[in-house]
């Protein structure tokens, strides 16, 4: 019985491993080049293109999402996207995604820029930080793991905290 209790307790918190990792330095310095992120798995021929980055590596990592939230302010994304509500740029906390909602799509949006005003941050934001921003942007509509969602920030309240928002099912609204 004691064993059961202990195991149950461990199981209850065991899901925390992935959420709490702090991978400070993942890119080897000397050979770090931009990861190839492709937005589709379709390809001609037999061999798929060498590609990585289909997953949002920080989707289940609370620290990564938190860092993404910090970087969102640092890099002035709020200048156009206003903490997710939009302004000059489209809102990020709703379910409408012009250029796609997959992590690879969001990555490419940030790195390549998009028509109608989204700047390209290629060579300006390292890949690991872009993935943190991807995870944070996904969290704005509740699309990361529920216990990795950020809560209120230490600023004036601008919106419901991310972990209190209703999760949205994303839809692509731009041209297919």
């Amino acid at each position, binding site marked *: *019985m004691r064993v059961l*209790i*202990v195991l149950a*307790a*461990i199981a*209850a*918190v*065991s899901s*925390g*491993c992935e*959420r*709490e*990792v*702090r991978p*400070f330095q993942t890119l080897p310095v000397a050979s770090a080049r931009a990861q190839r992120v492709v937005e589709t798995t379709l390809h001609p021929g037999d061999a798929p293109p060498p590609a990585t980055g289909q997953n949002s590596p920080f989707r289940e990592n*609370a*620290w990564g*999402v*938190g*860092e993404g*939230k*910090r970087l969102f302010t640092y890099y002035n994304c709020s200048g156009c996207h206003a903490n997710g509500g939009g302004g000059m740029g489209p809102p990020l906390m709703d379910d409408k995604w012009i250029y796609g909602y997959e992590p690879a799509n969001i990555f490419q949006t940030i790195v390549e820029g998009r028509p109608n005003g989204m700047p390209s941050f290629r060579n300006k934001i390292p890949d690991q930080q872009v993935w943190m921003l991807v995870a944070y942007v996904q969290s704005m509509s509740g699309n990361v793991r*529920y*216990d*990795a969602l*950020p*809560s*209120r*920030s*230490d*600023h*004036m*309240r601008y919106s*419901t*905290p991310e*972990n*209190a928002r209703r999760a949205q099912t994303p839809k692509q609204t731009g041209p297919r």
Partner: protein
Amino acid sequence: MTDAELLERTWYVPRGVLGWLSVADHRTIGKRYLVTAFAFFLFAGVLAGLMRIQLAVPNNRFLGPDLYNQIFTVHGTMMMFLFAVPVMEAMGIYLVPLMVGARNIAFPRLNTYSYFVFLCGGVMLVATMLLNTAPDVGWFSYVPLAGPDYTPGKRADFWAQLITFTEVAALAVAVELVATIFKLRAPGMTLNRIPLFVWSILVMSFMVIFAMPAVVTGSSFLLMDRLVGTHFYNPAEGGDPLLFQHLFWFFGHPEVYIIFIPALGMVSSIITTFTQRPIFGYTALVLALIATGFIGFGLWVHHMFATGLPQLGLHYFTAASIVIAIPSGVQIFCWIASLWRGRPRFETPLLFVIGFIIIFVLGGLSGVTLASVPFDLQVHDTYYVVAHFHYVLIGGAVFPLIGGVYYWFPKITGRMMDNTVGIVNFVVLFVGFNVTFFPMHQAGLMGMPRRVYTYPADMGWNTVNLISSLGALLLVIGGAMLIYNMVTSYLWGAVAGDNPWNADTLEWGTTSPPPVYNFLYPPVVEGRHALWERTAAAPVVTGGRLDCRECLVTDVMDGEPSNKTEFPGPTIWPFVAAIFTSIMFIGSIFTAWAVPIGTVPIAIALILWFWPHAPGHDIGAPEEESTPVVEARAS
């Protein structure tokens, strides 16, 4: 059946797995609390050893910053919340009913509940340590660092909820101890005749009752900020980070006295027994304990001298922090006077008490230096403070506790601990402690701040840190020696009689270990030193019901019998309620819905727990009314 056999049957301790979970007996729960608290002590001690390895040399890479931060946080949290307070309460749970002549502690099922809540909280913290989700924000977890912005994930939530676990457990035990001490004393034990250890537990329990709610409030506000987005500590929306500090330290300062005051009671017990004289200055010692308890609530801002609060207020807290040295000083003088006029027997418990005086007085004096605002502004948050609080906590609480372990081990287990090993144990611990912590005063004065995972090689801190780390090795050896002594004595130690030390308090007036009913007939107390002042034809209480768990209730001031009450027997519901409580607490870390949903099973368990039973429910049906009688009988 003889009276003893009847009582044995009535007060039985159930066996088997279900029995282990349903026991409502204070000695069993007290032993469990002691063993569990010591297990946490060892775990936290290992963490400290890891810290000292990391700090032995500059720029060490043994532990990275993230792991080091988790380790020092869990070390502090575990020591303060899972070892120091529970172990003192555990000594109270085991010894207080015996010392006041009762058969069981008041509210025994609550006792069981509190143990399982404590155990679940501790297991939760250990599990977080193993799963990279241990809190990493320091044992007092200041905001905004512990707030949602700067500690993402669930680490700080586990810290805050651990507070809730341990405070619920501690409050429950405090309530039981107060009720036992006030209402379950043996007839004739007036307030004036209560042993000093019992006084210390009484003061501690009142301090727990008044201090714990503040920290539960502070940690609950933190949980709410982190989970549901309140703004208690968010200055941008009208909150204040200093609110957390005030709430925490309003508890945090009394907390250290909660830990320290029972140790003072143990010191008085040991000195009385090992000088074979009544203690000098009983009244002064009691008043000093009470004064410490009161004044302890007025000092908390001395942890916040650097926060920019107004100067006049700070000087008030300087004065209060210095005033509290006076009752402590009175106690030290009374104990030295007791040692002066008694005939000391230099056995292990007394050695630990002497070690306590040497170490604690140094710690208390470094505390007086810290009370001075200008000086504190230089040494606050440096290793000087680390040295100070280890001197007062280890010297002031752990040394008396180990002395108490050597002293009461025969009573609890029926075997004597080895005295020679004990003396060596004392020397190793005393030397190891001083070698570890004295150089930290120097490190702090040389500018080394606290909570640093490493330090540069050119600051001049290398030697003192290396010496501290080597001393820590000695402490590990001393700790291992203590465990060795406890285990081998438990298995093969010399059998102890009822009163191997010729002590004066009531717990030594029954067998070692005590029977399940504590005393065959509850004794009547005729003086302050119950066993020394007992005549051969001393009265005992007879005539009570022996076939159900009946206890005599006496009044608060004079110990006059007032009525009898029936105590509950073993039941599974406290354990079930504790499990549901733990599920609710842990669930509320992840979702706020756990609170409304989680209270339903708890309510059901509580209803089943308190379901009224007919009198004599636990053992047979009542046959006749009984009237307890005080009569002289050779004991």
